[in-house]
């Protein structure tokens, strides 16, 4: 037990919890400022609305599923040293591909989800290839691809009469047809969960996404492939030196990240309860992947809990109306991300508090991506030309954490090694 309090997992969790508490305190202050008589009741509904009734719980899980996917998308990119701010665009394109397969081509739901994955992957591929070949910053490219994706999807849907709701008997033209009338087989199966929780929102997507999160965990932490991706994020030059094809890995990271966001878009709109509405503003579900990833410290398992939490307080925010604008929740989330931005600092302070030193604290989030050197067996690869596609795996990660470790990290160097190395070349 004592070891647990010293572990990085514990400090990561504690840092996230502190951010959440600070966010909630600021939210409470806002509630008091804007409408004092309702403030306590408002805080109560933020805190309890999600569990108050079974159908509210269903809503929490329903919204959490796509959030897990966009959170995984952003978190996966963070782990590999990229900032995928384009999850929104990939999410939109994924949703579009799923709906085209579902409505236009009348395909079953699992084909639609595969199509969503491919759509998102394509939208991640282009920023990835621009970064790898031309060294164009992926943040700028993916911001532009968010808008390009949105405009392209709107343009396409407007020109596909079969996609629009009025083709399927509804009166409005500004959204896609309801799946219930267009193609019931494209709706994600509910497996009786809707009756269990008494809500139409419930389907198996939450279990699908948790399965995908575990898959991503295995890829990142237990496989050579994931290790190579992370090595590129930690130190591109060192990984090139070790014979990893860094350019290929950057593209692959963005493709996987985009595919994850794309699936998120697919499962949200294949639930049968949502219709894609043609608007000129970006969808917030993709942007909310950023706080989810930061709160979950980019760890796939952490992201599951973070997504459920964000979804939970959003349901709480809807319960705030009409006394307050539900955007108070967005303020709380924004404060939480703002605090996560300097989580490195918080973690160092916490680390010092619990251990008396900071050498063991290694930030999991984006803040320290560029920091740690990767252990490379220097002698082995020195004969090869650096940078060109060698494709040789680095071999098994040398210092894979011992079984007793919390499993949060697979940085193949113990921190002592890092310190030794850094000390060595000064």
């Amino acid at each position, binding site marked *: 037990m004592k070891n647990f309090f010293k572990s990085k997992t514990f400090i990561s969790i504690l840092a996230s919890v502190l951010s959440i508490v600070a966010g909630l305190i600021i939210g409470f202050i806002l509630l008091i400022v804007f409408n004092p008589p309702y403030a306590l009741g408002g805080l109560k509904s933020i805190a309890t609305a999600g569990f108050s009734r079974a159908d509210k719980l269903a809503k929490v899980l329903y919204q959490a599923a796509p959030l897990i996917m966009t959170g995984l998308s952003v978190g996966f990119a963070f782990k590999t040293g990229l*900032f995928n701010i384009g999850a929104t665009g990939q999410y939109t394109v994924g949703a579009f591909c799923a709906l085209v397969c579902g409505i236009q081509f009348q395909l079953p739901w699992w084909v639609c989800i595969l199509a969503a994955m491919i759509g998102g992957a394509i939208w991640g591929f282009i920023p990835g290839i621009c970064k790898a070949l031309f060294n164009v910053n992926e943040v700028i490219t993916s911001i532009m691809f968010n808008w*390009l994706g949105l405009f*392209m999807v709107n343009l396409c849907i407007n020109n596909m009469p079969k996609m629009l709701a009025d083709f399927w008997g509804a009166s409005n033209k500004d959204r896609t047809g309801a799946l219930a009338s267009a193609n019931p087989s494209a709706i994600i199966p509910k497996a009786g969960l809707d009756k269990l929780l008494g809500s139409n929102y419930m389907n198996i997507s939450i279990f699908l996404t948790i399965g995908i999160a575990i898959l991503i965990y295995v890829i990142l932490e237990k496989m050579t492939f994931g290790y190579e991706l992370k090595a590129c994020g930690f130190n591109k030059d060192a990984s090139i030196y070790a014979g990893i094809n860094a350019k290929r890995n950057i593209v692959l990271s963005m493709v996987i990240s985009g595919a994850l966001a794309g699936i998120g878009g697919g499962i949200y709109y294949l639930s049968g309860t949502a219709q894609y509405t043609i608007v000129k*503003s970006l969808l917030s579900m993709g942007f909310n992947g950023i706080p989810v990833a930061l709160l979950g410290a980019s760890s796939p398992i952490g992201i599951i809990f973070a997504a459920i939490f964000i979804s939970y307080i959003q349901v709480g925010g809807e319960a705030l109306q009409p006394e307050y604008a539900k*955007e108070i929740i967005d303020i709380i989330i924004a404060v939480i991300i*703002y605090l996560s931005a300097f989580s490195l600092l918080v973690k160092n302070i916490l680390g010092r508090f619990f251990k008396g030193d900071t050498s063991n604290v290694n930030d999991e989030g984006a803040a320290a991506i560029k920091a740690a050197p990767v252990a490379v067996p220097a002698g082995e690869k020195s004969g090869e030309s650096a940078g060109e596609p060698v494709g040789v795996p680095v071999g098994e990660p040398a210092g894979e954490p011992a079984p007793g470790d919390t499993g949060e990290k697979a940085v193949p160097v113990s921190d002592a090694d890092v310190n030794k190395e850094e000390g060595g070349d000064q």
Partner: protein
Amino acid sequence: MSWANILADLLGATVLFAVPLLLVALGGMFSERSGVINIALEGIMIVGALCSCLTLVGLDKSGFGAAHPQLGMFIAILVAAASGAVFSLLLAFASINLRADQTIGGTALNMLAPAFAIVLTWAVQGQGQTTILIPTWTRITQDNFGIEKADTFFQNLIFKSFYLTTIIAVILFIAAYVLLYKTKFGLRLRACGEHPQAADSVGINVFKMRYAGVIISGCLGGIGGLAFTVAAGSGFQSSVAGYGFLALAVMIFGNWKPFSILGASLFFALFKIIGSYSDSIPFLPSFRSVKSSEYIYLMLPYVVTMIVLILTSKKSRAPKAEGIPYDKGMR
């Protein structure tokens, strides 16, 4: 409509929409030239627009605005600049003092600003009222100069959509150029964005310079927010429709240099206007068989920027130290 009228409308509207892009991109330039990536421009614009629109409404209600319209507008511009600067301090504090990741800090501020704007608009205007209308006296008309109203080319060009922000933007553009290239301050600011350690070694306070860069970008971004809201014309709805991000693209397209940024913002604005006028411009392909073809024109500036970014990536001159928190101990 006659040809001359269309042309006048087109040019006037292009300038109108180029103004916010120019101001905000110049703001981003100051911040990035000092070494801080300012992705929060969108949020800064929203806060600037929110505070200045509330000021305009307040001035309208007190009757001061109708009596002294351009003085009222000037006050609103000052409020926009001040509120943008205050909001940008949040970014400066996180990224300079706490050495936080600048992109994530900026993203947080981008989320914070629209939510805050909606909550505050509700609080001020009552439940469900999400639009702050801009009073009509803000526009500069022929009456301000005592000119007879006439349907001539030049009057259409100038007075159809003429606001004090346009004049201010021209002044600020010249001031920004002089400040960045012709003053000691500008040289120091640029040094901090290129090699802060070297700047520090000759006695320049890197923290102060970066704070200055971010605050200037906050002022310009705030005014840009107001300029966007008057250009959009439908009042402030807690959003600036992605213009902050567009301004980032303009800044990169303009290679972090004032005159190139001016050109880039006119280019982006022209495409935006062509998109919304595509039906009434005879020589453009109007894609009649395609529904809602305005999206094609909305996509064009992004596509062109992507191509330009790829082609110029070898020559692109981003400030070397941007995005890297300054650490005295770093080698």
